[in-house]
């Protein structure tokens, strides 16, 4: 291994210098002449019929170019979405969630756009809003979506977008000594990336150029081509590094609107959301999960039985896929003879559910791990012991027909137990918890990479991954440096331009180190094959006698640096070697999710807490996360991602929730009323550990890692709070008020 540059090194982040000097350009920072500024127009209502929109006063504001309404868009209204094409470019006759844009102003200045937006007169009739699971499922509930835009199916006349039934064995036939049954809820939460979403579009010849802080630029290219009726080749998407995304910037949202505005203006148009607007653009699914577990008296699981309801928004976005993919793995990594999971994605007049770090797994894990603890307590069995007793072994299936356990998971759990000193006593008022999280990686995937080995031995790597802070740019450069034997500072990454960089399906599900990593590796191997042919020609040696490995050309009688062969082989004309790599996770049409898990992210979290009996405030004294990462391509970045996910998980467990009023309007929009962890909310001790057995499907045995440590944070913390206080809380967050009230009500 290459100690300072290559894989496994704590290499500095590529792009790091720009981040500490202020030179990193996010969408809002890109200079663009002649740009119009856009501002959204909304109504303070979760559900309303739009009667009329009067733009005349707004259009009289000096500097206003135009006000875009649904009437200015093609009819029927273009709709789009990753799974269901149900989201309109602008609200189509009805506002279906609080903050859904009904119009947008384009003006020469931000001031003019903001002023004019307040002068657009929207006449509307407020309608009752459905924003809870119970209200949406009420038999006579009004339908959130007109059946005409629904896919035909048995639930089209209800607010159930789709129902899933997963499982195996027969739960009804199983005999259990102890059965535990409870309902666990998880509130809607917002991503709160510090960079609110930014979008820009500009006419580009007979096509369009679009800039977006998006994780999936190639999905945006496809969406814009479809709604604008352009060939994909005429849609050029620039994807500057997002300033944090956490799933909230995956799929297109307001880009089609901005593109229509730019075409109408025949000028660039930029829309930068406020933080409040970002809250209303994306959010995490709220869930209610009824868990029922049957045990033998020794703690062996006999059955697991779940009913999962995911509160999806007014448009499907990714909510249905989150419901399916997370619910499929509700029973977790435990050997269970019979499992029944009924899962429903439920439409409501709320912001569309978007992917959010963990993709629904934190919600199902909250229910499962909490219920498992309640079972352990009912049985008088240690909470670590009950997990180890039921945990599948390496190579054993936990979901029949899916990928078997792809790691030594017991090693991970035992490491967490050891680091929290499981079994040692704590003083009164303190408590300890432990929980396990497991998440399927991608079920399908396709990534391409091109690597150009230039005549001076420097390297260009083309990758369509978005670097939103996880450090993708750095690890791909490390792979190229390793394979081509060049210093890391001679590798440059080219990303974020769909007209230049080959296709990548998406940046999500902790996939990139595996899928794009393999594509980059394969592109480097393509170059190594060409180097081998060069060496064969130069030295008149049969290719079968030459080995090219990690930057070195091994001839039968000597070794040569790869760069020497490149230079000699290219000769006086110079030029370059181009390598292409592809990496694919094939779909499986017979699998309920359309494909098996490419890998699992497996994490065990344990913590010690103290609870203040006078205030209900929880202080995390020691927080330990252990993730099975396969291999750490860059240990410094792995720690950053792992600790970051843990702190985000603590925010979700202890403080974060969107609050709706009795009309379904979000009341805590923005940074004052929606709190996320600050430096003062850190655990007193936070330790991130990894298990490395080089057994992942990515380069050198890597697995995805960026979500692991928030999968089971909430149940670990709640278990510790219960251990400290005796109170059982089944609704998040564990706010001081909620904990204090529960303590007061204790018998």
């Amino acid at each position, binding site marked *: 291994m290459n100690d300072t540059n290559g894989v496994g090194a704590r290499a*500095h982040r590529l792009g790091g210098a720009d981040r500490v*000097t202020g030179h990193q350009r996010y969408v*809002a920072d890109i200079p663009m002449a002649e740009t119009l500024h856009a501002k959204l127009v909304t109504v303070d209502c979760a559900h309303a019929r739009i009667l009329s929109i009067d733009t005349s006063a707004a259009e009289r504001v000096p500097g206003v170019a135009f006000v875009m309404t649904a009437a200015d868009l093609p009819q029927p209204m273009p709709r789009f979405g990753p799974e269901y094409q149900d989201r309109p470019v602008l609200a189509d006759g009805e506002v279906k969630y609080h903050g859904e844009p009904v119009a947008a102003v384009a003006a020469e200045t*931000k001031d003019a756009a903001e002023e004019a937006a307040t002068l657009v007169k929207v006449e509307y009739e407020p309608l009752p809003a459905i924003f809870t699971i119970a209200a949406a499922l009420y038999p006579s509930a009004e339908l959130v979506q007109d059946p005409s835009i629904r896919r035909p199916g048995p639930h089209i006349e209800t607010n159930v977008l789709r129902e899933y039934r997963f499982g195996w064995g027969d739960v009804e036939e199983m005999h259990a000594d102890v059965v535990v049954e409870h309902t666990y809820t998880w509130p809607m939460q917002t991503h709160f990336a510090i960079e609110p979403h930014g979008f820009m579009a500009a006419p580009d010849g007979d096509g369009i150029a679009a800039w977006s802080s998006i994780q999936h630029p190639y999905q945006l290219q496809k969406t814009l081509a479809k709604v604008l009726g352009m060939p994909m080749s005429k849609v050029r998407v620039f994807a500057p590094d997002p300033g944090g995304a956490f799933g909230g910037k995956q799929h297109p949202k307001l880009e089609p609107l901005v593109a229509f505005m730019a075409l109408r203006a025949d000028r660039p148009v930029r829309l930068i959301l406020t*933080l409040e607007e970002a809250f209303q653009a994306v959010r995490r699914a709220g869930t209610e999960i009824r868990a029922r577990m049957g045990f033998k008296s020794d703690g062996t699981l006999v059955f697991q039985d779940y009913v999962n309801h995911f509160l999806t928004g007014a448009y499907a976005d990714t909510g249905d896929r989150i419901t399916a993919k997370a619910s499929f793995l509700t029973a977790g990594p435990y050997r269970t003879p019979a499992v029944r999971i009924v899962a429903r994605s439920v439409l409501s007049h709320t912001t569309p559910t978007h992917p959010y770090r963990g993709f629904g797994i934190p919600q199902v894990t909250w229910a499962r791990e909490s219920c498992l603890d309640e079972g352990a307590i009912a049985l008088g069995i240690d909470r670590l012991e009950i997990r180890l007793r039921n945990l599948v072994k390496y190579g054993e299936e936990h979901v029949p027909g899916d990928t078997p356990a792809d790691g030594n998971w017991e090693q991970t759990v035992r490491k967490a137990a050891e680091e929290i000193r499981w079994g040692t006593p704590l003083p009164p008022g303190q408590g300890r918890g432990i929980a396990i999280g497991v998440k399927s990686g991608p079920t399908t995937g396709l990534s391409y990479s091109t690597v150009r080995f230039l005549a001076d031995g420097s390297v260009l790597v083309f990758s369509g991954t978005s670097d939103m*802070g996880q450090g993708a740019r750095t690890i791909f450069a490390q792979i190229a440096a390793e394979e081509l034997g060049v210093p890391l500072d001679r590798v440059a990454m080219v990303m974020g331009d769909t007209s230049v960089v080959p296709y990548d399906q998406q940046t999500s599900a902790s996939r990139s180190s595996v899928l794009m990593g393999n594509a980059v590796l394969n592109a480097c191997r393509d170059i190594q094959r060409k180097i081998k042919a060069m060496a064969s020609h130069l030295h008149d040696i049969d290719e079968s006698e030459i080995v090219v490995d990690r930057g070195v050309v091994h001839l039968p009688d000597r070794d040569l640096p790869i760069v020497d062969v490149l230079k000699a082989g290219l000769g006086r004309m110079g030029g370059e070697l181009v390598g292409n790599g592809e990496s694919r996770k094939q779909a499986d049409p017979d699998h309920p999710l359309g494909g098996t898990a490419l890998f699992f992210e497996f994490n065990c979290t344990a913590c010690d807490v103290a609870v203040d009996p006078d205030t209900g405030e929880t202080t995390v004294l020691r927080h330990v996360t252990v993730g099975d990462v396969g291999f750490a391509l860059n240990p410094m970045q792995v720690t950053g991602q792992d600790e970051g996910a843990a702190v985000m998980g603590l925010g979700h467990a202890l403080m974060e929730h969107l609050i709706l009023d009795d009309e379904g309007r979000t009341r805590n929009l923005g*940074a004052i009323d929606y709190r996320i962890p*600050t*430096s*003062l909310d850190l655990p007193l001790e936070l330790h991130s550990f990894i298990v490395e057995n080089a057994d992942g499907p990515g380069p050198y045995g890597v697995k995805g890692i960026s979500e692991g440590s928030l999968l089971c944070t909430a149940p670990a913390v709640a278990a510790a709070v219960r251990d400290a206080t005796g109170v059982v809380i089944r609704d998040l967050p564990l706010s001081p008020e909620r904990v204090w009230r529960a303590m007061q009500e204790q018998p």
Partner: protein
Amino acid sequence: MNETMHMEMTVNGRVRSLDVAVNHTLLDVLRDDIGLTGTKECCVVGECGACTVLVDGIPMNSCLMLGIEADGAEVLTVEGLAEGGHLNRMQEAFLDTGAAQCGFCIPGQLMSATALLQRNPHPTVADINEALAGNLCRCAGYQQISAAILASVQGAAP
């Protein structure tokens, strides 16, 4: 058109003389009038710290201050931290510890940290967490950030 006023301030050592709209914040002036986009906009209510700059040495949320209030002031932004084209010790330390992930909050973190070290050259981790509590990091690299600040003062004269 908005009413404007003439103002002069020194930004990163360079005198800027300009007419600014009276309703524009210092953040607006820095980003839109001067073109220094290193200072970031997020919450615009003084809660997230992404827009932190030093005004006469004091860390300020530039979203909460009118541009004209900085008339006559010395303003330091993230673009002014590097010395002679080289990263300063703290910027280097941020790279060494992996403190800059997505990077969006980092300009504000660096400015708050710079102010902290000016008034307390040898802070503890608790001092750092207290001083930077107004700078949100959703990547939550708080431990890497405090480690970087500590590393940047190690070896400095006590």
